[in-house]
């Protein structure tokens, strides 16, 4: 009898897992340092969460984000449907960190060394998330800078090799030097969506694309 009850209970658990609501997809916001990833993450959180809390502090100093931060259950409404995602803001990826660069931002040596150590840990963490823990990627690029960098080439290659859906955003279109076409030329195999996360320009199209790619 006990065996039968146990079996029934196992079947019931399996059925509830099978038919329960789908878990929100974890969407990682990736890109090089200073591309505007946190500004975008904060914009999404402010637009679509009840309290509109920021995910993290924004700064012009590189490596302001040194830990991956997750905002759960962000519900984006598009065409009467709701797409629920977890937004993961990640530290900017690089292959080198030199603490002396932080000294140029009026930082004491101890603070610069600490920041560089935290930054390296953050990049390692971001790479680990990319291999193990995200279901899709929003790749953010500063459209006023050259996209033909090794980090961009490698990261897009890594994302493609894992068959993750990727939405490329050409950010900072409010800047005079912005060139969306340059990014389109660099990654012709993907669609590029222009945006200014800071000013909120073209965010409607970004949300349409998020629903299309990750819904």
């Amino acid at each position, binding site marked *: 009898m006990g065996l039968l009850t146990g079996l029934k209970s196992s079947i019931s658990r399996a059925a509830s897992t099978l038919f329960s609501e789908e878990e929100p997809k974890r969407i990682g916001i990736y890109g090089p340092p200073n591309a505007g990833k946190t500004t975008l993450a904060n914009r999404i959180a402010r637009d679509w969460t009840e309290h509109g809390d920021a995910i993290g502090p924004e700064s012009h100093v590189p490596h302001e984000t040194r830990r991956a931060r997750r905002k759960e259950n962000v519900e984006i409404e598009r065409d009467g449907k709701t797409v629920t995602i977890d937004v993961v803001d990640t530290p900017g*990826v*690089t*292959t*080198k*960190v*030199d*603490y002396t660069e932080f000294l140029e931002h009026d930082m004491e040596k101890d603070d610069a*060394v600490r920041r*560089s*150590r935290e930054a*390296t*840990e953050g*990049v*390692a963490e971001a*790479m*680990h998330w*990319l*291999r193990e823990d995200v279901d899709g990627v929003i790749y953010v690029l500063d459209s006023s800078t050259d996209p*033909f960098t*090794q980090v961009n*080439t*490698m990261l*897009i*290659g*890594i994302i*493609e*090799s*894992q*068959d993750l859906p990727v939405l490329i955003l050409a950010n900072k279109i409010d800047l005079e030097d912005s060139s969306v076409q340059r990014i389109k030329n*660099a990654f012709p*195999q993907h669609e590029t969506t222009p945006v200014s996360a800071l000013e909120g320009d073209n965010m409607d199209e970004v949300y349409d694309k998020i629903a299309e790619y990750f819904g």
Partner: protein
Amino acid sequence: MAEVKDPSEGVRIDLISGERMAGLTSMEKIRMILDGVREGNIVILEEGLSPDEESRLIEVTMTEISPDEFNGIEIETYPKSEAADASILDRLMGKQSTQKLTVIGPANQIETLHKDETLISALVSRK
């Protein structure tokens, strides 16, 4: 036999064939690259690394960065990745090609001057 020079007089370049890399595990490849680069050598891989190995190379490099000692690496490959052109069937069958010449060096000694689909031009300085 040529006279052994003082390594501090120049920059050592190791050109590693695809054949030599083929027999190594991912971590052995990464270790070989980083050991060479940390000694101030420029490492040139005939066939490069897979995307997964590149991801691990970045991760391990980050754990080894140390102020005033090692700032990380500069790595360059041609921008066009053959991997992106592989069909889904090829990828499933493990035929994904990652062959691309790759140059890796210490971040404080190598600077990329120009890069496009067919040319990588870099300036290498001594330590």
